[in-house]
Every structure is written in structure tokens, then in C-alpha cells.
């Protein structure tokens, strides 16, 4: 773990035992996150990208100890979170918050905006007087661009973008060190998406927040992240500084993922070389032998089916898991 890291994840594995499909069927094991590791520095944004089912949300929840992991360690400011008692873990939660994709679904419709935003405050600082509590709620609303006069309104009276601001105000009220953002702008229209991305960027600069930003939208991730982790079928395929990843992707999957994003410029979009992957992501219940990506990889060779590629260093601050990344 480097000196500046606040979070250090090593060889994390999360698996689920599934009930058999038939009475006498076999109990099946789904490995959702398979040996993933990364560090996160204070004030840094780590983007996590990958397609549906790649394990990005599961990874984030396991890091926050909201899901049990079956192997590996998560070290937060020197403490191995997996070895803490529930009370010790609870005390650390105030520094780690989570915001979700569907802002309205994440908010209790029967609570006022003020009550929603104050929830973490009431849990961790229950002895605040009403005046101080009210001031802290108003401060948090103001911080995210919500009018504090709307404190007694209900979530349904707000638009999607405003609901996401409510979620961010709730996450920010304890001034955490880390916010995990799980697809925070995916449900929002482009004009509102830009507002929320800018807001998160501003909060990060002002408060030295670290962000784990999970998204399937590579354009947004490029804009907001300093480093990016690419997942495929629960495995780390590449980890690199954001600009290095986009300018010179090393893993064939990263390359295909970037090439697949349509660019809003007709001249560039029509001229760019097409790199269309065949097939679909395999089922995580029955992953391919060796490299998980080999069934769709244009560069796959026999070795890829025989041996799982190790995660290797591929330049300063870069990791890649591919037998052929040097070529």
C-alpha cells in the first residue's frame, strides 16, 4: 500500500452460491468478482468500467463491506475492514458514502428532503440540537445547488437531476473521505448529466473527496477519472491512468470497448476503423477456461484457453491481464 492510499484492495473475490435449478440439480457457484485489486489515493477518482454483469457494482459493494467477500482484503486507512467488529465498521462508515443510479428509487417517498439528507447525520451525530441540525441540512443542500427552502418537500416533487442532488447532499452531509458513485448519471438526460458531473468534480476539488465512479459510459468516465479500472466477467483486465488508457489501451477488450462508443462527430465517427466484437459476454456461471475474454478476442491463441493471464505491470501505474499485450 502506497503512502497516499486511503483504500487498498487486494485479490478480492465475491461469489454467490445459487440454488440448484432442479430438485436434484447441482448447487452452482457464481464468481461475480474474481481476484480484483486496486489502490485509491485521497482526493482521487477511480473510474470502474465494464458491461452489464462484469461485477462493477458488486465490487463496490464488497469494498464498502455491504456484501461479504469470499477472499481477499480491503484495507481502509490502515485497518483491514474484514476483521473489524460490526461496531468498529459502523464508525468507519461515516467516511464512506454511496450514491445510486436511480435517484428517485433510492429516496424514501414518505420522508421529506430534509429528513432524507439528515439520515446519516442522525445516525452518527444524534445529539445535535435542532438549530445546528437544521443549519447542517441547509448547508448541505446549498452545497449541491438545492434551495434550502425546499427542505420540507417530498422526493416526487423533484426532477431526476434534483433527486440526484438530494442523494449527493445526503452523501456529503458528514463530509466523507470517499463517495462510491454507482452509475450516478446513467438515468439522466445529457443536459442534466453535465450538471451532475460538474457538481461531483467541484465537490471533489473543494473537499479533497475520493470518488469511485462506476459507469458504463466511457465518455463520462474519461472526463471525471484520474485512473480507470476495466472489468470483464468479474476480472480486472486493465488498470491505467485515464489518459494512458484512452490514448494507448493495452488490452484487446479495452480497445474494443473504446472503439465501440459512437463519437458525436459525423466526420470522425464515419472515418474511424470498425472494431466490432462478435458474440456476447459469456455467462459468469460458466466462464471460459483461461482468459475470460478469449471467446470474443480477435487476438486469442491456444495459450489463452489454457492459462489465465496474470495481472502484470505494463508501464508506470499500469496493469494489464493479457498474454499478448506486448504485441
Amino acid at each position, binding site marked *: 500500500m502506497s503512502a497516499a492510499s486511503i483504500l487498498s484492495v487486494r485479490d478480492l473475490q465475491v461469489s454467490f452460491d445459487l440454488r440448484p435449478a432442479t430438485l436434484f440439480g447441482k448447487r452452482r457457484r457464481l464468481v461475480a468478482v474474481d481476484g480484483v485489486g486496486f489502490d485509491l489515493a485521497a482526493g482521487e477518482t477511480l473510474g470502474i468500467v465494464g*458491461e*452489464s454483469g462484469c461485477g462493477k457494482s458488486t465490487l463496490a459493494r464488497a469494498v464498502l463491506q455491504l456484501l461479504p467477500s469470499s477472499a481477499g482484503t480491503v484495507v481502509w486507512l490502515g485497518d483491514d475492514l474484514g476483521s473489524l467488529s460490526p461496531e468498529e465498521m459502523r464508525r468507519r462508515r461515516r467516511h464512506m458514502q454511496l450514491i445510486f443510479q436511480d435517484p428517485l428509487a433510492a429516496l424514501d417517498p414518505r420522508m421529506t428532503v430534509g429528513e432524507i439528507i439528515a439520515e446519516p447525520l442522525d445516525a452518527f451525530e444524534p445529539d445535535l440540537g435542532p438549530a445546528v441540525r437544521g443549519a447542517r441540512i441547509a448547508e448541505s443542500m446549498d452545497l449541491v445547488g438545492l434551495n434550502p427552502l425546499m427542505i420540507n418537500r417530498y422526493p416526487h416533487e423533484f*426532477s431526476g*437531476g*434534483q433527486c440526484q442532488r438530494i442523494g449527493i447532499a445526503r452523501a456529503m452531509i458528514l463530509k466523507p473521505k470517499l463517495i462510491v458513485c454507482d452509475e450516478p448519471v446513467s438515468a439522466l*438526460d*445529457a*443536459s*442534466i*448529466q*453535465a*450538471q451532475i*458531473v*460538474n457538481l461531483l*468534480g*467541484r465537490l471533489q476539488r473543494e473537499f479533497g473527496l475520493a470518488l469511485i465512479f462506476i459507469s*458504463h459510459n*466511457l*465518455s*463520462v468516465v*474519461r*472526463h*471525471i477519472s484520474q485512473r480507470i479500472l476495466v472489468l470483464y466477467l468479474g476480472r480486472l483486465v486493465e488498470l491505467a491512468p*485515464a*489518459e494512458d488508457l*484512452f490514448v494507448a489501451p493495452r488490452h484487446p477488450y479495452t480497445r*474494443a*470497448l*473504446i*472503439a*465501440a*462508443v*459512437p*463519437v*458525436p*462527430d*459525423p*466526420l*470522425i*465517427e*464515419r472515418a474511424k476503423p*470498425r472494431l*466490432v*466484437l*462478435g458474440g*456476447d*459476454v459469456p455467462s459468469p456461471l460458466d466462464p471460459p477456461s483461461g482468459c475470460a475474454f478469449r471467446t*470474443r478476442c480477435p487476438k486469442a491463441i491456444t495459450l489463452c484457453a489454457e492459462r489465465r493471464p496474470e495481472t502484470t505491470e505494463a508501464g508506470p501505474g499500469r496493469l494489464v491481464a493479457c498474454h499478448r499485450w506486448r504485441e
Partner: protein
Amino acid sequence: MNAILEIEHLTTRFATPDGEVHAVSDVDLRLDAGETVGIVGESGSGKSQLFLTVMGLLAGNGRAEGSARYRGTELLGLSRGEMRRYRGRHMAMIFQDPMTSLNPHLTVGRQLTEVLNLHKGMDAAAARAAAIAMLEQVRIPDGARRMAAYPHEFSGGMRQRIMIAMALLGGPDLLIADEPTTALDVTVQAQILELLRELKASLNGAIVLITHDLGVIAGLCDRVAVMYAGRLVEEGPVEAIFAAPKHPYTQGLLAALPRVDAKQPGDLFAIPGQPPNLQRGIVGCAFAPRCHQVIDRCRAVRPLLADLGCGRRVACHRVGA
């Protein structure tokens, strides 16, 4: 030019318990044979309702005024039976979620051949052969065997291909695709866009691509129509509009997008505020409350679509003034 669809002064309203919602407001749009036209706008902009109106698929509380002519025949006011004759055979629509069009209880083969029995009166053997050929055309491998499979046995991308196959079986010359790739992962989206690109080359008609993704439009469309709050605010050739958008909303939308191919320094351009509530009648320009170029006239008088030449139209008081 050979007009396939001519939409004039089309207005669609919905009666709701909270009052009337103006989903589409006085839209004019023409589609010619051989064109692929992108319709872009944010949720609630009316982009889907415009074409649901054209297809006679409005919800029960919806009411349409104006005109929509398919090859000269007025579609608004046709009976359900008459409309059904046009749908499938002349015009077909595909949706974001293929399961809205596919019946989960019937095999794919049964659903595909049914279209051919219904619209073309084919016998079972001919319909089966045509359906298998169509599965091949949409790049579903091993079509003959997969005819016996049910929709849930296919992946999301494959289901989307089946829906496209079903839409094409009747031989329509107007294909309306409503967010066909939005629910798909980006690598699967690339496959479906590739398929639509091939279709565009082979289909002897027009394609409408409704999407919120300007990147998809940039790659596939000849013209783009930008909608905001039920109104058409800008329309014209894709290259011209992406190179120099005239309407402040189009400008803002393009500037708000982070790019996968370049790093923007600093903040993204963010259009302030929210889209308007369509339950309240909008006076003046619908975009005025969020527009940085607004003048008094914008708040009082609705700007009409004005012809700028070179096939471009824009509805803004500040353009060409």
C-alpha cells in the same frame, strides 16, 4: 424527391387527471426514400410520441391533430383495421425493449412466420424458408435450428436482431427504430449499429432513428431533427448541424457531451435548469428559460421553423435576425 412520409402541423395531446399534456406540438417533417433521419431529444421531448402517433399506436388518452401522410395517404383518422394494413407491410417500428414486441410464449419461428401468413398470405413452407433467410440477413447464426427457440433463450442483442427481422419481414419501406440500442451494452450496440448500417444500404425506403445519443446519429444518419418540449427546434443535414448548430439548445446539447475521443479541460458545458412542464401551456420559446441568448421576444412569441437554405431549418428568434 420521393416523399415516403410527410408530417404537417402534427400535434399530440394527452388527457391526464392533472390536465392536458402537449406531448407533440405543431411538428412539420418530411422523409424521402433512401434517407436515414435521426430524431434526437431528451426524455419527454416528444420524439417517440411523434412516431407513435404516425403509427397509430397512441395510448387511449391521446389525441392527434394535423396530418401525417404515408406516400400520399393520410394516416390520421384511419380506422384500426385500416391502420393495421399499413403497419408491418408498409411501415414497421422497433423498440428499445424487444420483449415489448416478442411474445414470450411463442417460438421465434412461429412469430416470424405469422407475420408472413398475415401480410403476404404465404403458405407454411414458404413462410418458414423466408423467415430463416431473414434470420440470416440479421446475422443470427444457425437460423433453421433457432426457429424452435423461445425469446428468453436469446441474449439481448440477439432478441433485438429478431425484432428487426420481424419488422423487415413484411417488406416495409419505412422503418422506425425507437432507441434500438439504448438497453444494450456498448459492444453489442456496435453490432446492432453495424446491422442497421447494412440495412440502410439495402432498404429501399427510409429509416427513422429515434435516440438520445448524438453519437449514434453522427454515425448513421443523413439528416437530424432536434426536438425540445414537443417541438422541432432544428433540422437539417447531419454534417452541417454537428459542425455548426444554430439553435442554442442544439449547441448546448453538443457542448454538454464529454467525448470518448478527447479529454476536455475543465468543467463540461451544462445547460442550466430543467426542461419545462408540458402540462402548462408554453408561451413563447420553450427553451427560453434555459437559454443564454434569450431576449424579451423569446418569452412572448413562439419562434416558427424558418428555412435557412441548404436544407436547414431552425426555430429561434436569434438566428438570422
